[in-house]
């Protein structure tokens, strides 16, 4: 009888403890989160399942920032109105919208959140991505679940045929252009074969800008309104690009992607392209190919290539539930999400988790995860102007014009280089003056 009473007591105890455990974290007061992002469709495709799984108890509200099949471009005023009206806690934005929000000081600095987290970001996220996001300022205002990075891909069949060596891991631009030149000058080369194919390259300036990006050189300073082309670094790169054109590595008629992706078609020895080419080649390439890190910065072998992030998670300054927003962001950075994404078919890029190549069991992916980037979210990135107004476009035309005359033997490369700085300064003055005039007329319109 005593025994039975003891058992009954134990049963009660178990029930009670069971109840306590059940009443634990999963049944806490409901948390809410308002997410602003993209279109419904994109949110459903890339984020909703994760958020519902990570936070099944939360009351999550989604506010679309664009309609299906259309892209809404926000200016400062519409963005402010959107923030005031929807009061999002978490925003998922592209880099242009990020810069808009950042320049208006509408985002929270995440360094405090990151420092207080139990698992350090650096243990989870690949260092290159964190460096890209911190950029010049060194502060963190955005994170994102995915990134794109580029690599140097090469066609082994073409290189073997011509006896040109495969590129080494820390190859620089000079060596790469040299190898591509050897391909172009080889009489055995098929006449349709290019040495180096760069999808976005349409003029010598595009090449110069990409090479200078690797070296971390800017030709102008937007803050001070000065031209910074007149330096030994720029002179070396300018002459490198001119000589590549002189040796026929590229021609003035480079047509970018007009004829499709030459490398994918097997008609280029080298290409510098993004990670998305990798699965593509793995599935479709009918030739031998390899990939390695893109050209590295001189004297800094571990710094190579560019990163792009199209979906940035940021916490608005006025977020009412910033803590939940940070929890959601942390979840997207977690190993758990990285592991899940290794099993999914479609993703919006490479997951940022540093262990992803291991989770995916594909060590070739390390090429995209190991190097530190040569660009950042706020410097030398895609779509970032270096000068005011129309300066960048007119500067590009100026440089292309001089390279054209060098190639036509109307000018030496020395003379061309020397001529650019003073002419560029005049373009800068003009752009600054125009900008001032626009500002004044805007102010007058607003004041009238």
């Amino acid at each position: 009888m005593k025994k039975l009473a003891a058992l009954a007591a134990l049963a009660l105890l178990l029930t009670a403890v069971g109840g306590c455990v059940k009443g634990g974290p999963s049944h806490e007061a409901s948390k809410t989160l308002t997410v602003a992002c993209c279109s419904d469709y994109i949110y459903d495709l890339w984020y909703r399942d994760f958020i519902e799984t990570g936070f099944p108890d939360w009351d999550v509200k989604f506010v679309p920032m664009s309609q299906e099949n259309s892209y809404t471009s926000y200016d400062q005023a519409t963005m402010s109105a959107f923030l005031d009206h929807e009061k999002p806690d978490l925003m998922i934005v592209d880099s242009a919208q990020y810069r808009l929000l950042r320049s208006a000081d509408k985002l929270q600095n995440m360094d405090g959140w990151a420092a207080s987290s139990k698992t350090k970001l650096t243990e989870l996220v690949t260092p290159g991505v964190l460096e890209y996001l911190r950029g010049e300022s060194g502060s963190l205002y955005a994170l994102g679940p995915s990134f794109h990075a580029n690599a140097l891909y090469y066609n082994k069949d073409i290189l073997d045929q011509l006896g040109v060596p495969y590129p080494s891991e820390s190859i620089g631009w000079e060596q790469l252009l040299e190898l591509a030149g050897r391909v172009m000058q080889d009489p055995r080369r098929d006449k349709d074969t290019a040495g180096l194919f760069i999808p976005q390259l349409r003029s010598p300036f595009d090449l110069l800008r990409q090479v200078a990006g690797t070296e971390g050189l800017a030709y102008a300073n937007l803050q001070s309104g000065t031209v910074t082309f007149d330096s030994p670094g720029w002179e070396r790169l300018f002459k490198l690009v001119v000589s590549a054109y002189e040796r026929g590595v590229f021609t003035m008629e480079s047509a970018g992607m007009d004829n499709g992706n030459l490398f994918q078609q097997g008609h280029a020895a080298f290409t510098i392209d993004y990670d998305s080419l990798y699965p593509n080649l793995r599935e479709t390439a009918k030739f031998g190919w390899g990939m390695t890190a893109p050209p590295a910065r001189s004297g800094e072998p571990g710094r190579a290539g560019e990163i792009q992030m199209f979906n940035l998670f940021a916490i608005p300054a006025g977020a009412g539930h910033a803590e939940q927003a940070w929890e959601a962001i942390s979840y997207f950075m977690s190993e758990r999400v990285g592991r899940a994404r290794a099993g999914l078919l479609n993703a919006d890029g490479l997951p940022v988790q540093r262990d992803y190549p291991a989770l995916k069991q594909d060590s070739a992916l390390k090429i995209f995860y190991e190097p530190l980037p040569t660009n950042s979210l706020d410097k030398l990135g895609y779509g970032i102007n270096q000068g005011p107004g129309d300066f960048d476009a007119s500067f590009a035309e100026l440089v292309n014009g001089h390279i054209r005359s060098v190639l036509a033997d109307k000018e030496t490369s020395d003379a061309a280089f020397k001529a650019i700085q003073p002419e560029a300064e005049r373009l800068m003055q003009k752009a600054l003056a125009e900008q001032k005039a626009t500002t004044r007329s805007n102010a007058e319109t607003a004041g009238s």
Partner: protein
Amino acid sequence: MKSERDRWQRTLSDLPLGSGGFGSHTMKSVKERIKMLERRARRRRRAAATAIVALLIAGAVVFRGDLTNLLTPKETAKPVISETETTTLNIMFWDNSTFMTMYGQPFIIRHPAVRFEYSAYPGAGTGVANSSVGIDRYREQLQQSHADLVQIPLAYVSELAADGLLKPLGAWMKRDKLTDESWNTAVRETLREAGGGELYGFAPEFAGYALYYNRDLFRENGVPEPTDGMTWEEAMNTAARFQGIKKEGKPVYGLSFGYSTNMGFEAMTIGDSQNLRLANAGLDQATANAKGWLDLWTKLADGHREGWINNVPDPEWEGGIDVNDLLKQDPFLNGRAAMTYAGNSYMQNLKDAPAATGFEADWAVVTQPRDKERDQAIGAFEIPYILAIPAKSASADAAWELLKYIMTPSQSERYIRLTRNSSLPTVAANDGAGDSRSAVFYRASVDPVQILDTAKRNSDPVYSSLAAAVRTEAYNRTKDLADGTLDVPALLKELQTKAEQALQAKPAGGGSASGEETP
């Protein structure tokens, strides 16, 4: 995201680590824990231990995860699906990337270490739960492949289960306290019928027809609105009241069939809902000119001739057809048809119509009209496929977790979102998900024996080739029809001949799945 139903769902599927602490466990893990407790008990050599263990066993079933926390803080039992060690599930599904979008992706997000492999689908590339390849190919694949989850036609469930090739799901359901009470009644009853009371597979979705109507047109013309469960005769009479009505100089029709205007298509579609057949059950006699068909064709010909059924000939489409062009072609979506008889996917057209055609009418929907000879049951109801676990699956417990997840309200909400409100999940989604007007499909009652019988007939390769031949002939013979020129008896004679030829061409030994003749 926060409702009773979702909480219910969470008790069914594993919770992610860190979001609550405990997940669901299978008998296997419960047994492992019990063994562990037994070993401890033996070490202590106490007489009372056995009794306590017995209590713990009883408790383990009730408390499960809680017990783990209480008694074995450091030795948590292994769950069926590990968070970090790979669990591979082999899937046999008509299209692998569709599988991933519909089920694979959300399941992997919930169980990050799950990976999928695929077995060849019988008649791959030919569509969902394709039955034209016959049951034998499915039988072979169930015996030979390593599949853990398979997609099969409803019609084959009974036989494949009788052959012992499918796992019964009842024991798992009982263990996990999963009931089918929240399912659509028609689906539940049909699946139970197919399994002789037991469930051998789940049907995540179903399909049906309904009568959509433009309330504005009914109000403007003083015609009483259609009602749930009306007969086809009543529906046709209602449609005829719109004869001669014009709007902005263009005719208004009483009845249309989406953007289609082909009388052959219309006859076959209504025939389905009236359970009209093109051959008898034994597949030795064609019935394409039976009385039911004659009445139906005659009524349709009247409607076309008198102009109360949309009678604008189908345009000749060249090349690809833009969906928006189809919507523009549809009189209902242009406010010029009082009623349209269409499937559940028409909900998607209605959703797209405001942008495509400027459609702004107040529309509503009632259950599909029924055959007057029959009771309330409807005929045009379909369970497009069944998901089942092969008896020889090596990862049956993990496959069960996936199957269980597929039947949750949150997954139903995904269907509705992904298909833009046009799919009909068997498990009702949370209130407020989707258009409440889709409830019409859940109201309709079916006769499960009839539905299963129809599925079996349609899955018979002989009947399906016969039906295809008759449909093609009916379509071709009516596609260029000028008003009032259809000689219905002559047409039916032609169709009957086509059906007879198809029966004569059937291979020796027949392909009939049931083979039994029903009177």
